[in-house]
């Protein structure tokens, strides 16, 4: 059995005439240590899919398993524990807490962990060091650039060494050079064994992934696999529906 399994995931919002079928039966498997990019146009359902993979958004139908755990059969508190133990989140808009220093922001996932403050601080400083911000631990988010804020978001996501990193448009707000740096960082983390699932609409960013899942109108339309450097194999899964809100 694969490390991550999605079986016919469905997500609807609203009811009656206002019903929106954001995700309409997506299935896939991801092995441990993979780097997968999820691509699609705005409104294609990729962010909804990522939130379901992040144990944040209960699907209307289907099953989502990680390490053979049916995530949505867990209680809310158990899902919170799962997020803390298994997942690291990198949000598109960084989502740093403005009144906390970089070190304190990175320490957030450790707040509810029983450990000495000094140990937590050392872990946060180590994570910041890994993303190249070891010399700015006492600064506030407002005192650093957007690219650096994204790095802090990555440091926060990896501070407790989660097996899976979920990234939502991690380069969406960055210039091309900074985007390249961030993608290099994610590749490095993947090379160290971390499973990475990244939502992006950037072809350039997607090149860093070994597999690309394309979504359109809430369904998985095709999949690309990197066989070796610059050689990709594409397989069509399903044609997109014409009218997703019908």
């Amino acid at each position: 059995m694969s490390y991550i399994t999605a079986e016919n995931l469905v997500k609807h919002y609203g009811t009656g005439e206002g019903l929106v079928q954001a995700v309409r039966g997506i299935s896939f498997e991801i092995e441990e240590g993979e780097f997968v990019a999820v691509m699609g146009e705005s409104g294609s359902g990729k962010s909804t899919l990522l939130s379901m993979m992040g144990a944040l958004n209960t699907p209307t139908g289907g099953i989502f398993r990680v390490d053979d755990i049916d995530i949505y059969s867990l209680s809310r508190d158990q899902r919170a524990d799962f997020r803390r133990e298994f997942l690291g989140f990198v949000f598109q808009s960084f989502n740093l807490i403005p009144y906390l220093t970089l070190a304190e922001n990175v320490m957030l996932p450790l707040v509810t962990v029983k450990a000495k403050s000094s140990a937590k601080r050392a872990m946060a400083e180590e994570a910041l060091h890994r993303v190249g911000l070891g010399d700015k631990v006492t600064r506030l988010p407002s005192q650093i650039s957007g690219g650096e804020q994204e790095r802090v978001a990555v440091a926060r996501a990896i501070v407790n060494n989660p097996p899976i990193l979920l990234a939502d448009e991690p380069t969406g707000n960055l210039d091309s050079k900074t985007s390249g740096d961030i993608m290099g960082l994610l590749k490095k983390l993947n090379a160290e064994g971390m499973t990475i699932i990244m939502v992006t609409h950037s072809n350039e960013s997607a090149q860093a992934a070994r597999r690309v899942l394309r979504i359109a109108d809430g369904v998985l339309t095709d999949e690309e696999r990197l066989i070796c450097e610059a050689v990709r194999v594409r397989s069509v899964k399903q044609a997109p529906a014409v009218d997703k809100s019908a």
Partner: protein
Amino acid sequence: MTLKDIALLNLRRRKAKAAFLLAGLLIGVTTVVALMSLVETMKEDITNKLDKFGANILIVPKTENLSLTYGGLSLGGVSFEMEEILESQLAKISTIRNAANVAALGPVALGVVQVGDKKVLLSGVDFEATRVLKPWWKVQGEMPGSDQVILGSEAAENLGLTMGDRFTASGRDLTVTGVIAATGSQDDQIIFTPLATAQGMLGMEGRVSMAEVAALCKDCPIDDMVSQISDVVPGGKVMGIQSVVKGRMETLAHFQRLTLSVSAVVVLVGSLVVLVTMMGSVRERTREIGIFRAIGFRRSHVIRIVLLEAALVSAVAGLLGYFGGLGTTMAALPFFTESADISVSFSPAMAGTAILFSVLLGLLASTYPALLAAKLDPNDALRAL
């Protein structure tokens, strides 16, 4: 870093909000402490005054006639058919249920004696009990022993006697050991001698004319005690002297009720300020709460952050409110009592209660906002950006 650190850092960052929260609770706690302190201090003042009254229960012989005296002027109404009070009956007062409340029992033997060409009222008293019953007495000289007397100031002047003088009354030689400074009462006109001496001179062995009782009045049931003493002294008419005090106590009780009502309103307003401020704070922090939940905070962790913030501000408000209330009481006290010797002092117990009350109030008013914060769906919270 802990949840407490997050709460502290958030308060530090949102200073204006924290100050508003603090002000809401501070006004509430200050008002409650000030009103409560004022009532307590006034109660203490009245209790002190009550204690200075000395005797607050009188036992006089039963009579079927009405007194014909008014304002110290006798119109000739002498009471006949008086029942007697026996000393043996008075001794039974030590057996009543509230005997512990009896601070002093002073039997009095009264009679008229002839000193030279003048008639004077002789009063035989227990001088040990008199110290409690008449604390305002200032005796120049010494308390008398057997066959010795002290004189009221007017009696000394009228009889031309002073300390050390000897005189004869009803065939008995007596020595003046002291003179009581003017009291402005009937005591100024009386000769006081030990009870046994007076009983011997007046032929009242084993009997007394009346008795005074000083009951410890703070929380003591005067009416109950009057009834209990009446039961053991059948020849006596027992009266509680408490009309003035009772009136003041009733006024105070009205004031206390008003205080409670005002306090309740102020506390309600304070709670609403906390509720509204915390609700606003939670709404402002939707994104932050979404992040907390996304990175693995349980709902209980979010509740704890909100409640910790409320508790921290409330504790500070409680402490400051206590001192604010104390200061307000000190400033307001002169308008409520004329007593110069009454003051408000720091009470650790009341300070602790104020802090505890403030924290409980803050927590109570913040419970709903905290639950609201915990109920925020992390996905919705993050999508709402």
